């Protein structure tokens, strides 16, 4: 489920935006195939994968991702060369007009850092994508177990 709204009007316009989001134009940024894993035992890190879609005719810049369930969420990218994998943090992510970007294992992914409380599979988490200096995409998903 995804919602789009202007930040200062977050609470007041929540319902209005829900309805607006169902209109003909639709939100410019949506997410599908969201999978977030519960942290492994003793770990303070986990990961989420998804696909972001830019439905607009303009490029979209995702500046920040956050989650109330984690102290920090970062966009990371793993790259493999000659069987060696390297992981780097991305400051932002640009989605060209009308394109989709996949977050997958071994590629771009969301690193979920320091859960604010103990999290287990089945629990709901929220991911907030801040883009284009003020718009927000909110994604809800349930944590999954690896096995």
């Amino acid at each position, binding site marked *: 489920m995804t919602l789009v709204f202007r930040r200062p009007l977050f609470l007041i316009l929540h319902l209005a935006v829900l309805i607006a989001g169902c209109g003909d134009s639709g939100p410019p940024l949506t997410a599908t195939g969201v999978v977030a894993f519960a942290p492994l035992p003793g770990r303070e890190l986990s990961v989420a994968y998804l696909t972001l879609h830019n439905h607009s005719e303009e490029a979209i810049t995702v500046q920040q991702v956050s989650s109330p369930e984690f102290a920090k969420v970062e966009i990371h990218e793993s790259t493999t060369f000659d069987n060696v994998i390297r992981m780097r*943090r991305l400051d932002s992510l640009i989605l060209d007009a009308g394109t989709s970007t996949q977050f997958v294992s071994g590629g771009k992914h969301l690193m979920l850092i320091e859960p604010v409380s103990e999290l287990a599979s089945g629990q709901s988490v929220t991911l907030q994508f801040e883009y284009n200096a003020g718009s927000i995409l909110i994604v809800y998903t349930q944590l999954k177990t690896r096995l």
Partner: protein
Amino acid sequence: MSHARNNIAFVLIAIALIGGGWFFMRAYTGPAARPEYATVLPSPMVLPDFTLNDQNGSTFTRESLKGSWSLLFFGFTHCPDICPTTMQSLAVAREKLAAQGQPAATLPKIILVSVDPERDNAEVLKSYVSYFGKDIIGLTGDLSELQKLTKRLGIFFAKSPADDGGYNVDHTAAVLVINPSAEFHALFSPTHSVEKLLHDLPLILESK
């Protein structure tokens, strides 16, 4: 004269039958199945001597690898992406191999060798590997002992500073197949999937 002609005819018929039989055998069975994703070494490579510790604190050496197939993955527990995904694929693939009737004696051990011995002590490894299965092995130990193994196998690992002052570890993400003679036998390059492992592992495991 007639006798000689009969002999020639007999030989020709025999050749035709054998040739035809071979042709139909090939047509029916096709060429022998081969691994599609793994690289099988032309000659298995003997592993060097090394001494590491498993997640229970027990000594683990090259001798410990003898007698069964093993899948070696070099990773670390602070890795949120490729390491848990690979461990998950290995664990699920082995479970499916067992369900498909792969004899228990040839089911490979799954071994995570930590390339971050500074943070991955036995206790940390124990909680991590036990998540993926009760008989999965985690190895850690002195850097010099680890390097004996990695250098010989061409496994790269190096710390990479993170923005928060901590560090990540860049590392080779291949899965190495070790045969029951403790030799490096084959290699799966990343990214790994259950499907790739399930296709190739039975072919590799029956090869020795």
